[in-house]
């Protein structure tokens, strides 16, 4: 058992980290080779309409335009119209439960591993430095939040007709890979079932998830950020909304 632990907690961690970083770089490179450099603003400007400012995060006036949009959105005289628009055009207005669940799920999923005390102790032993830790009760709570949100996604996959229409086995496997490190970590922390086995399973699950990120559906982790910054549409930072 100890030898398995040594192997899983040693070389395999490095291997999975290498796969994760190399894969991420590969995917980012791929994104830019597939990028089509279309002109962001149309040539034709309808008469009477003021010239559209440039779109995209890295264009000159993007931040200024975004601030102006926020100011316009918060202005008192537009409030009724904006709230009505928000309810029908923004994903947080259309699907409040799903949007908040997915936001909280992903924040907890990404942040929790960095601030767990036990992870930081291992990191300190291995490298001599570590992040600061949050209290164990708090990270335990975050783990439970991840598990509850995961259960909600499973419920959607099973019982919501529109989600079921495009769900296949692969989706369940991906959901399981994302949840497994948290489930095993939770069980190990509370010493439910055999601790040694649970910890080894926990490490294996974490490594599996790391390696899965660049090359499976979980690559939406990488593409999410690329999309927010580089593709101009409703969801991107900078000036995003399309006009017809």
């Amino acid at each position, binding site marked *: 058992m100890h030898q398995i632990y040594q192997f899983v907690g040693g070389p395999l961690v490095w291997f999975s980290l290498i796969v994760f970083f190399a894969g991420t770089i590969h995917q980012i490179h*791929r994104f830019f080779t*597939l990028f089509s450099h279309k002109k962001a603003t149309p040539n034709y400007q309808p008469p009477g309409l003021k010239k559209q400012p440039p779109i995209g995060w890295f264009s000159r006036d993007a931040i200024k335009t975004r601030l102006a949009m926020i100011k316009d959105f918060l202005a008192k005289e537009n409030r009724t119209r904006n709230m009505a628009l928000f309810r029908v055009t923004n994903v947080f207005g259309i699907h409040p439960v799903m949007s908040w669940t997915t936001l909280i799920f992903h924040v907890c999923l990404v942040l929790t591993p960095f601030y767990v005390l036990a992870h930081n102790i291992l990191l300190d032993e291995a490298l001599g430095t570590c992040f600061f830790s949050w209290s164990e009760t708090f990270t335990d709570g975050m783990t439970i939040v991840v598990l509850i949100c995961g259960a909600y996604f499973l419920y959607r996959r099973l019982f919501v*007709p*529109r989600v079921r*229409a*495009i769900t296949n086995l692969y989706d369940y496997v991906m959901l399981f890979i994302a949840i497994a490190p948290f489930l095993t970590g939770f069980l190990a922390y509370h010493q439910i079932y055999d601790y040694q086995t649970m910890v080894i399973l926990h490490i294996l699950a974490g490594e599996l998830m790391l390696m899965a990120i660049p090359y499976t*559906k979980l*690559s939406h982790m990488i*593409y999410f950020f690329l999309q927010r910054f580089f593709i101009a549409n409703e*969801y991107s930072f900078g000036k995003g909304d399309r006009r017809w």
Partner: protein
Amino acid sequence: MTEQKPMEINPKTIQNLLDEKKAQIQTALNVCAHCTLCAESCFLFMTRDQDPKYMPSYKFINSIGTFYKKKGQVDRDSLNKIRDIVWKDCVLCTRCYCPMGIDIPAMIAHARNICRSQGVVHAFDAA
């Protein structure tokens, strides 16, 4: 109009057309998290009782996705099904959006290209 005899399906041509956009198709199918948040952006979905078959993701997964998974080895039946998806269920208004940034209209348009290469097109004068 006289009935034309259907062309033979040529998997090789389909494969060649798929290879032209292989990376895009692969990435799109891989990145789609099946979250169904694109559904509301399709006006057909909204006006037809929110039937899941009008979801943008459903349409591209079941058209270009089928071609890609079967490597072009499709039979007449599935080709006709794909034709109905890409012409009847989608009007290519390009207003759908994906939280992950998948260019769904481009995928549907390419599926139309592949259908055309096999002589399968929507008959606008029929029905």
